């Protein structure tokens, strides 16, 4: 029979081992997820964006989202959302400094950026959702939401490092809303509405592999040189003549939290565009590795339960029918206090 001391040191050892395993080594770590082969995504090139917000309106229309009222100092606007919300899946935000006259310059300049779901390779929202309402398509990598499954716990809202999923707090029967890359339009040969309407190709739709090549091509150009910019969907033949731009040396989304399927190019540093600075390791991987170490194959909980059962059984289960026992009050209580058998 297990003695109490053995048991206690075993339990303490288990916790310590789990702590050590998770903090010092990678043994048993959950592997980083690879980019799906046929991953679809977007490339947003801030240097091409003119801030027309046609993409914001098109997104609303394609996804049946209601217009939103925005109250600003200068007045009261309809459908000029400043941020994502339960009613808005895509917004264009603006950086402005000083006079705000020079495009894509840090000083006295301005720049645009897009905010929408990044379709992470290893998404936090999928990892946290307790009821599989957030899923990542194994082929296209699109991170999808199932209203039917969702319980509205908002763990995904809290966990997404980009602050993407939004909840409709003002509804009695609420839901989560987030960009799903217009997957509903794919069956009819359509694609993301934001990319389709973009007049400058600032938002471009395509396979992530192709988008990555396009990023490499643009970065290799000499600023000021003549070049062609594809528009809408990469590879559909629509393009126009333009001038190569100067980019900061950072493709946002390329490496952040294990990579995303939406890539951003910019002429100004991403911090200025309020893009969160994120680690390379996916938080989903870190958290699942920790849980995995504690609950590795459920061995620790089962072992712990076994020890608990053995001790509880020994200390609680009647050995004889109670009434037939001799009564020796002092002695018996004493024995029990020492933890031994009477």
């Amino acid at each position, binding site marked *: 029979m297990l003695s109490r001391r053995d048991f206690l040191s075993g339990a303490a050892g288990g916790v310590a081992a789990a702590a050590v395993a998770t*903090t010092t080594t990678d043994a048993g770590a959950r592997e980083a997820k690879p980019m799906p082969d046929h991953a679809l995504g977007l490339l947003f090139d801030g240097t091409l964006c003119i801030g027309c917000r046609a993409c914001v309106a098109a997104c609303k229309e394609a996804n049946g989202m209601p217009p939103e009222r925005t109250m600003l100092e200068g007045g009261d606007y309809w459908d000029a959302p400043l941020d994502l919300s339960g009613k808005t899946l895509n917004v264009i935000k603006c950086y402005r400094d000083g006079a705000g006259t020079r495009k894509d310059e840090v000083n006295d300049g301005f720049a645009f950026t897009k905010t929408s779901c990044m379709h992470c390779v290893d998404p*936090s929202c999928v990892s946290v959702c307790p*009821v599989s309402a957030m899923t990542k398509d194994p082929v296209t990598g699109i991170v999808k939401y199932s209203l039917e499954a969702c319980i509205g716990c908002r763990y995904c809202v809290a966990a997404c490092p980009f602050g993407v999923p939004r909840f409709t707090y003002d509804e009695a029967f609420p839901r989560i809303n987030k960009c799903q890359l217009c997957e509903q339009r794919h069956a009819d040969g359509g694609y993301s509405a934001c990319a389709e309407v973009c007049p400058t190709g600032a938002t471009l739709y395509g396979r992530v592999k192709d988008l990555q090549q396009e990023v490499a091509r643009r970065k290799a150009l000499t600023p000021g040189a003549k070049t062609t910019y594809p528009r809408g969907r990469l590879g559909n033949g629509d393009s126009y003549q333009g001038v190569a731009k100067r980019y900061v040396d950072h493709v946002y989304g390329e490496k952040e939290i294990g990579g995303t399927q939406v890539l951003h190019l910019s002429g100004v540093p991403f911090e200025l565009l309020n893009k969160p600075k994120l680690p390379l390791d996916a*938080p989903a991987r870190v958290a699942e590795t920790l849980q995995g170490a504690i609950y590795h194959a459920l061995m620790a909980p089962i072992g712990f339960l076994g020890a608990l059962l053995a001790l509880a059984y020994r200390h609680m289960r009647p050995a004889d029918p*109670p009434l037939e*026992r001799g009564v020796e009050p002092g002695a018996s209580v004493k024995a*029990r*206090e020492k933890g031994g058998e009477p």
Partner: protein
Amino acid sequence: MSTAAPHGAHPAHPVREVGHELPHVPAGAAHEEAAPVGGRIWNRFTAGLAALVLVMCAVLAMRFIRGIGAVTNLNDGYPWGLWIAYDVVVGSALAAGGFTVAFLTYILNRGEYHPAVRPALLAALFGYVQAGMSVFFDIGRYWEFWHMFWPRYVQVNSVLFEVSLCITTYTLVLFVEFTPVILERFGWERPRQKINRVLFFFVAVGVLLPTMHQSSLGSLLVIFGPQVHPLYQTQLLPLLFLTSCIGMGLAAVVFEGTVSALAFKRHLEQELLGKLIRIGTTLGLAFLVLRIGDCARRGVLGLAFQPTALSLLFWIENVLFLVPALLVATERARRHPQRLFVAACLLAVGGLLYRRSAYLVAYETGAGFRYFPSMGELAVSVGLVAFEILAITIAIRLLPVLPKEPEAAESA
């Protein structure tokens, strides 16, 4: 005081307790018995509690008719607020006395803690019921809550799945652990003996489950990564939440023991409470050592000396874990009921603040979002606590929960 009680005593006078005790405990040992406190249920105090519960119901009616936004200040930057951070995360930690005392009594076989088992289990039961109710009010699509337990939907990588499954199962286990008390009250001997034979199983599971979900309440934050301030974000979150919840749970047992002694004009189990608070404060110290050591190891301790509100909170929490241990360090000190009480309060508040900081203050999703609980949120939290106190008060009056008072037994 009779020592040989007849088997199957009259229901109104439960002389002998089999419910949780070891079968070889001598029948009639005075300190092992429990008895209903009796007395009138409705008085000004309980009526006041009931009024608070009614206010909560009114707010909840609004919440269910017009949505969460109508009564709360929750937003997409702070999707979890008072109802989760306090009612679930803090509330269930304060209810951790149930499993801790059961562990001491039955797993470590320390009979001296036995009188604390029933009150602690009762408080745990209603603490967890309260947490469960709060989750139900908080989740937006409450009518789908069963998805969390339905194989087609469950997502095993989700810490939240583990937490909800664990908490729900544990609440059921607490019910089972508590049934002997009810059966004893009504003198149903047969079912009581049957349950007693398998009770060891529930006691064991009832220790395992809280260690799992109390630590997982910390793990919930790990995936927030850099959204939680480095002073609080660590791989040790599960261990920190586990150690601090034991301190908080035992502090709550001491708090409730002192308050119920005053409220029901009973004698105070000074020595027992002294031992419990000592274990609690020791775990509090362990928390402190782990926490500071971990911050130092990760090289973020310097952040605690920057002039920010968060680093101030960090140190306030640490002091609240340290001071109770000093207050009850010596045996002489533990002879002062006031000291025990103050130590318990400080420890509980320390754990509460730590949890609140981790969930609400250290958590930041980016600029532009603010959160302070609305009146409606407060009304619901207060109403839930009122409900819990009301239920516990009534149960103590009607059921054999508290140890029988020697004098009361004589006069009965």
